[in-house]
């Protein structure tokens, strides 16, 4: 099994605060790899450095065996990484269709509609994204990531704000991608994590606390104290 993504000693310092501390992460091709940890653990900062949103203070990133540490964000996206924002970032004043056409980087209406169908929003194709409910905007954001048919899909807390029924649709959608797309999933909802993840990395105060299969992690007491113990909080 090869790793589609690998980081080595990845570190991010913000004026005195070490948000990410020498993280070595390997994501195997085809896996759904969950990244969990308490608020402020550095999860978003870590994946931000993978996608190129911010430059690491130290360390390297390899994608598909290629060192992409200094590659600008847009070039990483074109190389096959798709990124969805923790804070919903759709084009509020554009139609759903226009949102998808931009995500697809072509102007195929058919493919845009197909991508909307996958999240059940095709009927709203001509509405403005800003008029959607919060949950639907989340789904649109996910659709924009999935539509790119990336080799690595980074989802930063995709189910935040989704209703129970939407979460189960989300699970189905993500399971449907298994095999074709490697997914790096930041997620607070442990049910989603346990249902989807092939592998889990636990991050705390910027460092990797544990790394293993869902069963390993569940058994790991240290993790339970750090995270699962107050997961419903």
């Amino acid at each position: 099994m090869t790793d589609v993504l690998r980081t080595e000693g990845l570190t991010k310092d913000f004026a005195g605060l070490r948000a990410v501390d020498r993280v070595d992460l390997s994501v195997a091709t085809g896996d759904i790899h969950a990244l969990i940890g308490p608020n402020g653990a550095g999860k978003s900062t870590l994946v931000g450095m993978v996608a190129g949103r911010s430059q690491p203070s130290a360390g390297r990133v390899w994608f598909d065996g290629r060192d992409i540490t200094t590659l600008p964000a847009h070039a990483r996206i074109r190389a096959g990484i798709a990124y969805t924002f923790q804070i919903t970032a759709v084009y509020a004043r554009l139609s759903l269709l226009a949102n998808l056409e931009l995500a697809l980087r072509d102007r195929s209406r058919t493919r845009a509609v197909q991508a909307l169908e996958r999240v059940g929003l095709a009927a709203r194709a001509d509405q403005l994204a800003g008029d959607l409910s919060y949950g639907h905007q989340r789904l649109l954001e996910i659709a924009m990531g999935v539509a790119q048919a990336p080799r690595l899909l980074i989802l930063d807390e995709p189910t935040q704000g989704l209703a129970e029924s939407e979460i189960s649709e989300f699970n189905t959608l993500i399971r449907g991608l298994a095999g074709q797309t490697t997914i790096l999933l930041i997620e607070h909802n442990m049910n989603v994590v346990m249902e989807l993840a092939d592998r889990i990395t636990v991050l705390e105060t910027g460092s990797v606390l544990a790394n293993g299969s869902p069963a390993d992690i569940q058994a790991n007491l240290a993790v339970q104290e750090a995270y699962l113990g107050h997961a419903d909080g």
Partner: protein
Amino acid sequence: MRSAALHLGLIAVLVAAGLMLPAYHQGNLARILVLATYSIGYNVLFGYTGLLSLGHAMFFGAGMYGLGLAMHHGGFAPVPAFVIGLACAAGLAAIVALLALRTIGVAFMIVTLMFAQTAFLTVLYFGEWTRGDEGFVLQQATRQIAGLDLTNPTVRYYAALVLFSAALLITARMMQLRFGHVLIAVRENEERTRMLGYDTQRHKFLALVISGTLSGAAGAAYALLFGYVGATFTSVQYSIFPLLWVLLGGAGTTIGPFIGTLFMFYLIDTTSGLTNAYLMIVGVVLVLLTLFARAGIMGEVRERFAPWLP
């Protein structure tokens, strides 16, 4: 389809207007068409890409002085001089873009303002050639293209219309291409656009160069058609005008810049005949606009009646 009909329809109306209007209004409209070209250029950067420049007079001026100096001192014919004017504006826009696009928001506004101020002072500094504030006149005998006398009011009107139509159709087409869609995406959410795989920095660079070049084309045409080159056209008020015209007509609409320029021109023309305090009336109109029609005239039309409007 509808948008092509709109643009060609507007051009057809303007062709007819040139034949029917009395001399006074024909002269006004010729001026409006050149200034509307300037607005169209400004709109590419401000309306579509979402970057507010306070220094576009430097591009208008680069075109104007590029053509003016080439004809006045270099003895160039109008067509090569026009090309020189365009090249000056494009070159200046590229330099400004490389430096100013390192900043965003208010800093970008201030940096463009400073560049334009520098350009203005440069014109005054080289007064020996530019004749500074006083400016210089382009001789009537030199303002001829292929036997057409650009000082003849009707020829001048149609020359202005050719320029305006070209700018309108080029930008309308550009906004249908993916390039144009990405400019709008940058305006709406730059970070999102970058994270969808677009080189937003490159798009902003090109938008500024296109915008500056169109503004320069307007400046060069203004000098050629009206025969005068002066430092006023590079002063800060000529940077503010296109912003006002575009806001009034509707930022991010293809024909808004023309509507705004037309409206403002006649507003000043009418009110300055009635009262000395015409600037106050202009101010009142702008306040009303921001209260009741924030999107500008064509922007409101689009929101209320015609969502398809380009």
